[in-house]
């Protein structure tokens, strides 16, 4: 890639691990372009990043045709620095769905960065991100939503929740809304918390071991990210992969 290395002053790279990125930056090919033809559906499911020198990068530039749907479900876990970057430009009446789980530990930096451009009316977008962070891991979601002046009846939603398992872990959540149309719905919510101690004791009082209680609660927590996977087999596959990663987290 010929572009200069981003800096932390670039809003979209604010929480990135630029040191990890630097050596491989010139080798990056730039975004993969995806065109979803009008009326069609394209789905991507990523349960592990392709990692080169510790860096795993997914970079998509998606154009979604009229009444078309693009769905991506991603599990970010296996990189020192992992970044899932999606730019989605929505046509009239189209839909963009993103479900992501960030499962980090050690000194990992994992992030999901989206730019959702509601360029035409009547389109919907839904983004659900759940992070579970242990050790000194950093998990971030930056989600920009841009609604063009004539993109009336846009319905855009973001839900971002993070669970910190250790004191040293960090979660960042940043919605960024630029809305020029006046008849739109843009819902966004973010929470950062830790495992509910009352629920842990409640489960223990029924005989559930602390390890199993933690597993059940985290499993339920991240399930939100994958409810929109329509195919049962595919959903179970990504959920069981997520569970496997969760069990290995501290």
């Amino acid at each position, binding site marked *: 890639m010929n572009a200069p290395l981003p800096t932390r002053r670039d809003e979209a790279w604010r929480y990135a691990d630029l040191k990890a990125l630097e050596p491989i930056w010139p080798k990056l090919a730039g975004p993969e372009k995806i065109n979803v033809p009008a009326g069609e559906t394209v789905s991507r499911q990523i349960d592990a990043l392709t990692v080169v020198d510790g860096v795993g990068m997914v970079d998509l530039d998606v154009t979604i045709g009229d009444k078309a749907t693009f769905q991506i479900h991603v599990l970010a876990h296996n990189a020192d620095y992992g970044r899932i970057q999606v730019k989605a430009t929505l046509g009239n009446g189209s839909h963009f769905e993103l479900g992501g789980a960030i499962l980090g530990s050690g000194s990992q930096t994992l992030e999901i960065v989206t730019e959702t451009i509601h360029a035409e009316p009547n389109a919907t977008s839904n983004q659900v991100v759940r992070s579970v962070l242990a050790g000194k891991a950093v998990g971030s979601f930056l989600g920009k939503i841009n609604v063009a002046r004539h993109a009336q009846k846009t319905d855009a939603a973001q839900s971002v929740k993070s669970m910190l398992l250790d004191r040293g872990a960090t979660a960042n959540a940043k919605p960024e809304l630029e809305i020029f149309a006046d008849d739109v719905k843009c819902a966004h919510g973010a929470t950062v918390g830790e495992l509910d101690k009352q629920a842990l*004791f*409640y*489960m223990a009082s029924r*005989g559930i071991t602390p390890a199993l209680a933690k597993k*059940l609660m985290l*499993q*339920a927590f991240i399930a939100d990210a994958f409810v929109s996977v329509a195919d049962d087999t595919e959903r179970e596959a990504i959920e069981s992969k997520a569970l496997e990663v969760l069990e290995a987290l501290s």
Partner: protein
Amino acid sequence: MLKIENLHATVGDTEILKGLSLTLNAGEIHAIMGPNGAGKSTLAYALGGRPGYEVTSGSVDFTTAVRAEPVEAQDGEAPASDPSTSSGRTVDLLDMDPHERAAAGIFLGFQYPVEIPGVSNLQFLRESLNAQRTSRGEDPLSGAEFIKLAKEKAALLKMDMDMLKRAVNVGFSGGEKKRNEMVQMGIINPKLAILDETDSGLDIDALRTVGSGINAIMRKPDKAVLLITHYQRLLDEVKPDFVHVLADGRIVKTGGPELAIQLENEGYEAIAEAA
């Protein structure tokens, strides 16, 4: 079954239980009544092992008959052995983690049952039961066996099976949560139930259902119940063998069922002062 001696417990820096002693034998139902702030819930939590409820001195011994199967009289004969006197295994409750206490046979009914989003009641109960069975060296129940048991206990407490499929206590009314506690108790089938204000938040019909549920599940010669309540009403449904008045961290008076009626008429203050 349960022998509490000179129990002192603190929450934060405040001493709440100040030398509480109490003995429950198998086959008995004990009611604990007392004014707000007397330490009733603290007693329940200290016995359950809740973090933050620190026992500073005293002892709690819990004895269960070894592999006690429900004792049933045959042809009108008395049970072969009286479980309240049969030799059993005694454990130091205070030395155990909360989940180990549960596996040993203690059930804590919560005053405010906790919501666990995303975990279904059925999954929660099956995991609970099987975790307990595994730790006791028993085989886990299969899915089909478990569902059969769950259906039976839900019917006993007049609870819709659909509610058991929902996330634990999420969106349940106060009364439904309490009923759900009793369904859980039925499925888990403990030796000792400590029920913390299970009657609060129940309407009259629900109170009757919960009361008969407690009787059906726990009124057994090898089981015991510690019933913490404010009101005489539940005791009309679940007849206690003993009633204790807890005030300022100690048991100040013990009597039979008539004590509950006296409390209802005279109030705690008069009785606590006279004691």
